[in-house]
Structures are given as C-alpha cells and as structure tokens.
C-alpha cells in the first residue's frame, strides 16, 4: 500500500497546474467559483484550449486523438481543474458518446464523428429519457421505422441537457417490439438541424433553462447513423451510463465547493469572530469535511483499482450516491452560511442549492443506483 503519487504523476500534475494557470482566466474562474453557468461560447472556447493541448478526450486511445491518460492521471487532472475553478466536466460527446463509437461504431462513423467531437464542430446531447420513461428507461416509446435508405423517427425526448445549443443528439429509439423491453432498442445519431425537430428549453429552479424537451416529428435519419447492430442499443447505452456515472460523482468539485463554504463563513462576522467559530456551524462543517475525506479516499481506491485493470462498474454506483449526496449537503451548507442574503432571488448560494438537487436525479436516480448496488454487489 502506498498512497502517494509517483514522481511521474507529480510531474504530470505540475504540467496540468501550469496549463490551468494560463488557461483559466480570472473572469472564468470567478464565474465558476460563484457557480454561474457558462455561456455556450465560453464553454466551446474552453474546450478549444483543451483540444489545442491534446487534452480534450482524457480517456480515449491515442489512435483516436485521445490523451490516453491512466485513471490516476485523469483523477489528477480533474482535481487540478476543480482546485483552479476551471469549467466543470468533460464534453458530453467525449465522455458519453466517444467510448461507444470507439467500441461499437463503424470505421466510417469513427473517422467522421470523433474528430468533430474533439474540434467542437459537433456538440452532442443525450436523447434517452422520455415523458413516460424516466427511471424505467427501457420502456421508451420513440419509434424509428425503416423507410428506404433510412429511419423515420417519431416521439418525444425530455431532460436533455444543452439540447438547445447542440448540433447532434445520440438517442435511444425503438426499432421493434421484442420479447423484452430492452430488445428492439437501437442507438441512433440524429442531426439536430433535421426538419421535424423542435427544441423547447425548460426553466429549472436554479433560474436557468439548460434542460430541454425535444419533439421528433417524422425526422429522417440516414441508415449509416445507426450505431452497431439494430436492436442492441440498450447494451451500448447501459455501458454509456457507467462512464457517465463515474464522471458525475463529482467528489473533487465537492472539495472545491467546501473551500468556498469556508470562504463565505469566514466573511460572515458574528460579534468579534466569524461564523466559522460558531459551534453549531463548525460541527456541520467538520462533519462534511470528514465525509468528504472518506469519499475522496474511496475515490482514490476506485482509481487505484481501475489502474490495476478493473472496470469502474462495481464502484461507480456507490461513488455516484456518495458524491452526489455530499455535494448536495455542501450546497445547503453554503446557502446556510450566506445567512439572510440567501433569500434574494439573485443569491448564488440559493441558486446553487437548487441546482445541486439534480445530482441525485440524473444519470440514474440514487434510488436506481441503490437498486443496482443491491442486485449487482450485494446479490439481493
């Protein structure tokens, strides 16, 4: 057992930190620190910088233009980004679609789409959920019927992050009704500029409208946009969710958010001291710091296991539960630390609190994660 970074890993970290010093402007840092959502052009500009450095796709193999980082390098990068208040997350095309195209896409699809994901020419959104198919995703109804050289897609998708700025959508559609709900689901790549697509942003409690509803009305999709085999889309998608899940655990971001809670509380005068010295507040803060430390070491262990060649599947659900619930607690503590200022409609802390509620709902609600853990890990 040795929990230190190797010299090579430390050198890598220094390289990342140096890059971030340059790349994250004070303005962007301030925005991320407050929790403001970035404008799409700001996000695109950030990813262009990553791409120029060859760091756009941390986990992809080199042959496809990825950085091919080890799990530890990816963790180091993520940690450094959180610490520097760089924009959160990886582009959805990189983290969710890329691995599937690399594993199951045709050579033509790989050659066409992967470079466009890296360059930012395409911006992808994920078309999975439907009004009647949330946690029970496999019950989805959007139909794709074969007609000539393509499919005609009809249906409705919902809870699609950034659909309004996306140029492409990867979607699960029903191509046949099979023996099980899962059979007959196919994985399609849909051009968002196709006729018949209507996007309606939905306002959320954080006063943003980043999540959208997408209506598909006789949308024509060429057959070469089918990924893998018709009817096998469910298998590809569940694998996708696993990748997504390990990305949304967000434990490094939670750590930075807790730094911010300390900043806020340290600036709140309470007589001759600050809120940090208030025993009730101090206890709540300490408990969250402690949980975070445990979560961080749990993540480190998962990374070390991944380094040793194990897939992230086993622990990704646990880390998603732990990371999301912790982030939500921290968001609530930040709102608490803000005091009366949190009642203002323009309060960052209150907005961030409401924003954090999504963490236990999306990419498989925490109840679904618990079902998965009960079945796959505990054998119940």
């Amino acid at each position: 057992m040795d929990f230190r970074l190797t010299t090579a890993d430390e050198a890598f970290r220094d390289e990342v930190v140096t890059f971030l010093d340059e790349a994250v402007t004070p303005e962007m840092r301030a925005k991320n620190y407050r929790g403001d959502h970035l404008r799409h052009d700001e996000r695109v500009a950030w990813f262009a910088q990553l791409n120029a450095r060859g760091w756009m796709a941390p986990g992809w193999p080199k042959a496809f233009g990825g950085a091919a980082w080890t799990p530890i390098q990816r963790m180091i990068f993520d940690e450094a980004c959180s610490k520097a208040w760089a924009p959160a997350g990886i582009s959805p095309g990189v983290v969710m679609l890329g691995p599937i195209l690399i594993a199951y896409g045709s050579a033509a699809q790989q050659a066409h789409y992967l470079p466009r994901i890296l360059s930012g020419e395409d911006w992808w959104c994920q078309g999975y959920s439907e009004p009647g198919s949330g946690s029970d995703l496999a019950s989805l109804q959007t139909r794709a019927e074969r007609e000539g050289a393509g499919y005609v897609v009809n249906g409705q998708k919902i809870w699609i992050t950034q659909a309004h700025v996306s140029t492409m959508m990867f979607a699960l559609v029903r191509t046949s009704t099979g023996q099980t709900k899962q059979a007959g689901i196919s994985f399609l790549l849909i051009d968002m500029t196709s006729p018949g697509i209507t996007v309606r942003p939905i306002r959320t409690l954080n006063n943003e409208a980043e999540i959208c509803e997408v209506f598909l009305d006789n949308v024509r999709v060429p057959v070469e946009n089918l990924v893998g085999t018709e009817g096998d889309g469910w298998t590809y998608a569940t694998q996708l969710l696993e990748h997504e899940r390990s990305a949304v655990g967000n434990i490094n971001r939670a750590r930075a958010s807790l730094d911010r809670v300390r900043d806020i509380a340290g600036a709140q005068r309470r007589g001759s001291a600050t809120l940090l010295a208030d025993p009730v507040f101090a206890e709540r803060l300490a408990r969250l710091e402690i949980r975070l430390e445990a979560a961080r070491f749990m993540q480190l262990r998962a990374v070390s296991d991944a380094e040793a060649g194990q897939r992230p599947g086993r622990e990704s659900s646990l880390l998603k539960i732990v990371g999301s619930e912790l982030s939500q607690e921290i968001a609530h503590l930040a709102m608490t630390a803000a005091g009366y200022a949190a009642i203002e409609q323009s309060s960052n802390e209150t907005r961030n609190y409401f924003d954090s509620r999504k963490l236990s709902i999306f990419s498989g609600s925490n109840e679904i994660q618990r079902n998965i853990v009960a079945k796959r890990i505990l054998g119940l």
Partner: protein
Amino acid sequence: VDFSLTPEQALIRASVERFVADSYAAPQREAIAASDDGFSREHWATFADLGWLRLLAAEDDDGFGGGALETMIVMEAFGAGLVAEPFVPSVVMASTMLAGAPGATAAQLRAEAAAGTRLLAIAYAEAEAGYDPAAVSTRARRQGDAFVVDGQKIAVPFGASIDTLLVSARTAEPDATRAGVTMLAIDARAAGIERRDYVTYDARRASDVTLDGVVVPITSVIGAVDDGLPLLDAALDRGTAAVCAEAVGAMGVLLRDTVGYLQSRSQFGRPIGTFQALQHRAVDMLVQLELARAITTHAAAAVDAGADDERRRAVAAAKVHVADSARTIGESAMQLHGAIGITEELAIGAYVKRLAVIEREYGDPAFALGRYVHAAGRG
C-alpha cells in the same frame, strides 16, 4: 497510488485470518469471554510465537518494523473474528510508546512484552476528564529518587490481567511548552494500588484503578518529566486508528450476515431481500462500510506519515466517521433481522455490543469532533 497489499502484508493478513478461522468460532469465543481473564493466555503465547507481538517493533529491535497500515490489516481481521486478546492496549499503544522512550526500564518492559511474558496497558482516563488525556488530576510528587503517586484511573483495559501500567500523572502545572504530565511505568501489583474489576458490555474486562501513595522509582519515567503528553497523545491516536480498523472488520461481518439473512428469510411468500425498502437500507450499510474503510485507511497512512497535526486531524476524522458508520450499520443489522436481531441467539449481537464499546474507546465521536475542529485550526 497503490492500494494492493505488499507480499509481507498479504502474509500477515492470511496468517491472522487463518488464526481467526481456526480459533475464534462462536463457541470458542464465548468460552474465552467466560474465562477469568476474558481473553486467552494460550492465544497470547501463540501471538508471541507467530511474532505478532513484535509486529510494530523496529527491525533493529528484533521486530517486524510494521506501522499503522500493518496494524490496520491485523485489526480488521481481529474485528471480523471479535478477537478479545489485548493487542491494542499492550502492543499497539503501550509497547509502541515505550519504543519512543530511552532508558533501561523501557527496554526491559518492551522486551518482556514482545516475548509475551508481560502485559502492558496505558492508564490515562479519569472520571472527571471526559476523554481528554490532558485533563490529569492524578498527581506524582517528587520524593528523593522516587515519585509518590495518588489518584484514580478508570477504564483500564483488562486491568486485572495487566502486569505494568503506564500511568499519566501530573508533575507540574501546564505552561506554554509543556502540559506538566509525566508517564510512569508502574507495577500493577505495587503497594497502594487497588482495583475495581468489571465485565464490559462486549464481554471483555476493564478496571478502575486507585493509586494511594504508590512509590515509583525515578527510573520508571517514560520519556521526559513533565512532557509525557505528546507520547500519550500519539499512543491514543494509534489505538484509535486500530479500533477503527477493528470496527471495519466487525461491520463487514454485520453486513455479510444481514445480507445472508435477507436472502434466506421469507415473508409474504418471497425472500425479504426482494423488498426495496430493505434493499436500500442494506445498500446504505455498504456505503457506510466503504466510507469507513476509506477514512480508516487514510488515518493509518497519516499515523505512519508522522506529522503530529495531520495525524491528530486524520485520526479524529476517522473516529467520528467510523462511529457514525458503526451506528448506522449496527442499528440496520438489528432492524433488518427483526426481533431475532435484538437477541443473543445470533452472532450479530456480539458484534453490535463490541461496536458500542469501540464508539467510546479512546474518545467518543463528540470528543473526536472537538479534537478534529481544534486540529483543523478552528477553535
């Protein structure tokens, strides 16, 4: 970063697990609990033979040179088997405290402890001190070449069987640099010592010890006069980290047994493990177990790294978390078993009792939380 065991660590684990499997089935454990000592001297001799009593001794002291990570490995297996022998008080805490102390007395005690012929325990807790090791009212007055010790210590583990007590005593008022506490090695059968022995809730043993004019030669000082608190502080952190690992082992068994019960018990015509409310509670047990294991490993690494502040902070954090996790897991195990979960019929009863005692050992979570906040520089 590497969480895998070294070959030596894997060997220790295999050897301890084999011992537990061979010697610590429930009937054997119960027989040991009912014995006079509350632990097995035969097993203690085995520990000596296997070299476990030298696990933490330096290599040039004929030891294995292990640290907190090796302790963690041993204690997790001990926790899974509810091993009662006083490994934490004697080996992890007392012997290691002596290892940092010069002088012939310390060397001799250390050698006899490693050979298994002398049992040691630190006597630090006092009735009015809460869990604070610095709140010492036991006094040691200098008299020629000796100290005369008066006071009372409580909750000395296996006090009736201990040969030498390492007692914290006040020798001066605290000042800016030193707490005025001195550690003294005192023969447990010295004149002026009285004990009240009792059985603890986990079927182990402890004693309250009264010292009335006990005369101790000056050669019995462990470390420096007036400056024994740092030694005690470090020993308590080692002990705390060790019982956290013990708790992780015990919690693992509780989860395993509870899942087994959920699979085998049927109600309404199907295994109760198919009910979602129960599944989710079991998953929360697993989440707590994994978090407790993670923070315990983190604490062990901090103990080995050796920086005092970080060690204090990390160990206190582990104690807070592990105690919380132990409550969640223990209470869920009882609840998910239903009525039989609160009886002596199943092994889980012995585990939840042990966890309730561990919650308090070397400082309860409220004390640990205060220590954490202090070590983090906030009050």
